[in-house]
């Protein structure tokens, strides 16, 4: 369904390649370089494993933080995910990008940590609704910071899949195909979750 609509969009002169699954695209130089690092890591090269940690830990941590809504627990989950992923590198078959595979592990690690800690999300909707009206003329930077805080709280109110779809798409730049891989859902479902999430955010912030 989605692909037919996207194909039709090409007639508008807009490059819709970002909407297609990554697997349909030729490997970029970055992807080839990543494959080399992965091979070195698989062969047991410590420097390559370190490189993978440095490269992907921010994405892994932020994804875990979006699942858990707790920075300390997100640190634990990020560590578990990186350690387990690198220990099980032989399992990565290249069916998805390495980042997608890793983020799926991060999401599952975060859920495991959450269950272990009996995590309950505590951000109340009222925190968003009761915010004072925006000041008419504050310094632009302060207004931005306030908006960011509101938006962050609103984001935490979304259902997990919507929250992750929005965060992965906007903040981490994943395609719908990659999000689908990370969330273990269809590409169409990833797209729907993203749009429902953004729509809900707009409602919460109105």
């Amino acid at each position: 369904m989605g692909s037919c609509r996207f194909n039709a969009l090409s007639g508008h002169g807009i490059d819709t390649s970002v909407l297609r699954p990554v697997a349909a695209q030729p490997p970029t130089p970055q992807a080839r370089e990543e494959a080399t690092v992965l091979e070195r890591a698989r062969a047991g090269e410590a420097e390559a494993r370190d490189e993978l940690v440095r490269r992907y830990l921010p994405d892994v941590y932020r994804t875990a933080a979006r699942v858990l809504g707790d920075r300390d627990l997100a640190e634990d989950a990020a560590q578990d995910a990186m350690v387990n992923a690198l220990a099980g590198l032989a399992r990565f078959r290249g069916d998805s990008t390495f980042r997608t595979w890793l983020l799926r592990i991060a999401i599952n690690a975060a859920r495991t940590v959450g269950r272990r800690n009996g995590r309950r999300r505590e951000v109340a909707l009222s925190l968003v609704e009761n915010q004072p009206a925006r000041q008419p003329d504050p310094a632009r930077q302060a207004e931005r910071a306030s908006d960011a805080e509101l938006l962050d709280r609103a984001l935490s109110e979304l259902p997990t899949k919507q929250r992750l779809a929005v965060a992965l798409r906007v903040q981490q730049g994943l395609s719908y195909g990659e999000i689908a891989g990370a969330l273990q859902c269809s590409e169409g479902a990833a797209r729907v979750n993203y749009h429902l999430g953004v729509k809900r955010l707009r409602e919460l912030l109105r």
Partner: protein
Amino acid sequence: MNRYDCETIRDLLPSLIRGEMLPHEAVRIERHLADCPACTAEAEVVRVLQATLAPVPAGLETRVLQAVRHRSTRRPTPARLALAATVAAAVLGGALVLNAPDGDGAAQTDVEAVGWAAADDPLLHGSSALQDLTVDELEHLLEELER
């Protein structure tokens, strides 16, 4: 612009705001935004979201690097391997129950419930021979079950 165009534009907003679009494509989208308050409002949400990336806590990278190095340099003792084999056999028994023909739906749910390691584990997907597992996988299985 019609609704159809708005859907396309909104799909592309994250790429626009991350600076990942070609200049002529970005201009086309900006033109649309100039005439479309609804898409402009969504673009503002996406912009702020993009600007609110949580910083990675200081020290986390060092901590994870140390954990990864520690894990990769650990050598399993015969006792740990024997224990891993025992618990793996127990998991295999559970997997056979979970994969019973009359319980596929429930089995999938249960496999997901035990976390990523079990969900990806070859033992739970038809490989019944412990010797198929690498030392890392046995170690990992052991650690998961020790928690």
